[in-house]
């Protein structure tokens, strides 16, 4: 089933704030194996401050948690026509204004960037603009999903 191309350009209302906790950052850093000295700035406030950050910073791919949560409303929309059982992750890109850090209250705005079909495969690209509650931009996240041909 092809995706509904009329979704392109659709912008979803900003999400409720996601509050970044030190323990969540630590858990994520542990899960990617960034332990010990390598992960100091992810778990130790003093180590993060020594690098000029006001609190512990999150690893660069942490923002995908927020992008996934905030785009769920689109992915689950039956009108879009995405068969999630056929979906694989195609591309992923981040553009950072600054690192996410503990204490951030982050609001996400999801935009449907592109929808196309090639050789029976459906491509869906979303952009998630992540900013603080006060409007300071933090990171933009592009995710391309591919629903493979049946």
């Amino acid at each position: 089933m092809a995706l509904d191309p009329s979704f392109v350009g659709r912008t979803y209302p900003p999400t409720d704030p996601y509050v970044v906790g030190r323990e969540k950052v630590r858990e994520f850093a542990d899960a990617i194996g960034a332990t010990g000295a390598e992960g100091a700035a992810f778990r130790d406030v003093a180590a993060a401050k020594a690098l000029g950050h006001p609190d512990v910073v999150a690893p660069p791919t942490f923002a995908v948690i927020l992008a996934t949560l905030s785009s769920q409303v689109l992915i689950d929309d039956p009108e879009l026509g995405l068969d999630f059982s056929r979906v694989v992750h195609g591309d992923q890109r981040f553009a950072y204004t600054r690192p996410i850090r503990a204490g951030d209250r982050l609001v996400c705005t999801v935009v449907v960037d592109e929808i196309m079909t090639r050789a029976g495969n459906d491509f869906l690209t979303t952009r998630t603009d992540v900013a603080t509650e006060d409007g300071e931009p933090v990171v933009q996240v592009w995710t391309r999903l591919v629903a493979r041909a049946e």
Partner: protein
Amino acid sequence: MTPGQVLEPRTYRVTRADLVRYAGASGDFNPIHWNDRTAVAVGLPGVIAHGMYTMALAGRAVTSWIGDPGAWIEYGVRFARPVVVPDDDEGTEVVVTGVVKTVEDSLARIDLTVTCGGEKVLAQARATVRV
């Protein structure tokens, strides 16, 4: 960092336990990352790593080269091939190498090569970082 510089390869072992831990921390509970039956049913050779887990490992390599995990400007990859993780204690290995392409205005662009079993698993993998 100087253009053309080859960065020291990093090798990361990936086991099923790592995927379970990553699923919990990231919230991505797609069963193709922990359940062989589901993985095989959708045409995969077996359980595969989350693409974002592989991207995170390549990110660790970059951070290890530059020192500051907060220096990221841009990071992008294409998931070219799945990382199949066998159900044993050995798991598999992901190897990350990098070459500095350009250094301008304190920004370094690094091209990454990420392989598993000698095959590229990420394509167009690039990081831009402040150095």
